[in-house]
């Protein structure tokens, strides 16, 4: 999908929220859309680096939902997810000086940090067995969490999320599962092979093909990945 086509497709829909003016240069930008005049993520990160608590407050309001969803996807426990969310934002505050815009966007940095902490938390708190059981139950009901979410009719997906999910849901279920286990559970190829009773080479191929399709799909959507 070309950039102009993407812009025109998003403009057809009536929106309650105001679109950020920077969307002209980055049509496939991150959610949520910002109100005019609101500081960018990068501006907030710079303010956090200068130890401005209000900037952290704004960043929290903007991304706590996304990071909580990511943590929940890993540890499957509401109370532990809330605790981890608080710890992660504290780490964002403490580690902000290590963020460099040359290496990526603030959200990518925060997600990487949150994922690592969530997977560490999963292992350290020995919640693995409990989460395993819950995940097993969920897996039996719905083969894939991404697919599960996409079928919830009551949820109105943002443009960004629906576009990303469209790319992901276009993968064969086995590729989705392999990526899901690697990214959200922190499993190695061998662990995935053991869990899914699949040859190691097949797991590797599934991961490689799936990730390439997602990467290429996102690149096509963003025109910049």
């Amino acid at each position, binding site marked *: 999908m070309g950039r102009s086509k993407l812009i025109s497709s998003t403009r057809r829909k009536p929106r309650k929220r105001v679109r950020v003016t920077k969307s002209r240069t980055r049509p496939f930008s991150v959610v949520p859309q910002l109100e005019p005049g609101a500081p960018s993520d990068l501006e907030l990160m710079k303010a956090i680096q200068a130890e401005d608590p209000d900037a952290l407050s704004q960043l*929290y309001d903007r991304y706590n939902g996304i990071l909580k969803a*990511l943590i929940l996807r890993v540890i499957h426990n509401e109370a532990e997810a809330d605790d981890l969310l*608080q710890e992660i934002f504290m780490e964002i505050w403490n580690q902000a000086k290590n963020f460099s815009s040359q290496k*990526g966007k603030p959200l990518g940095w925060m997600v990487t940090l949150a994922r690592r902490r969530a997977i560490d938390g999963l292992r350290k708190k020995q919640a693995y067995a409990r989460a395993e059981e819950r995940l097993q139950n969920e897996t039996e009901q719905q083969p894939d969490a991404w697919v599960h979410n996409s079928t919830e009719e009551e949820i109105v997906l943002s443009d960004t999320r629906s576009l990303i999910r469209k790319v992901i849901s276009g993968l064969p279920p086995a590729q989705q599962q392999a990526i899901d286990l690697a990214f959200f559970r922190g499993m*190695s190829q061998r662990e995935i092979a053991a869990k899914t009773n699949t040859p190691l080479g097949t797991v590797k191929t599934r991961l490689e093909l799936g990730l390439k399709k997602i*990467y290429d799909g996102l690149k096509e959507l963003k025109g910049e990945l």
Partner: protein
Amino acid sequence: MNFKEFQNQSRLYVIGALEAEELEEFEKARKKFGKKAEDYLGKCYGLHEAFALSLRPAKSSAAIKDRLMAMVRARKEP
């Protein structure tokens, strides 16, 4: 390892799915390709963002933010 193979491995690397025996060769290639490799890896980390954005945002209690901000402000005080 040629650059195309490096690209394949990079996508596995950023989600932590490379096996130990693959990591060594990957790091050698990363060094060999230098800035080109680092630039590509930076792009691959966009996958993290995309996976997070693929999830429906979850609600968290207001008390979490209150506690967080209290801790931050307490640390900031001399």
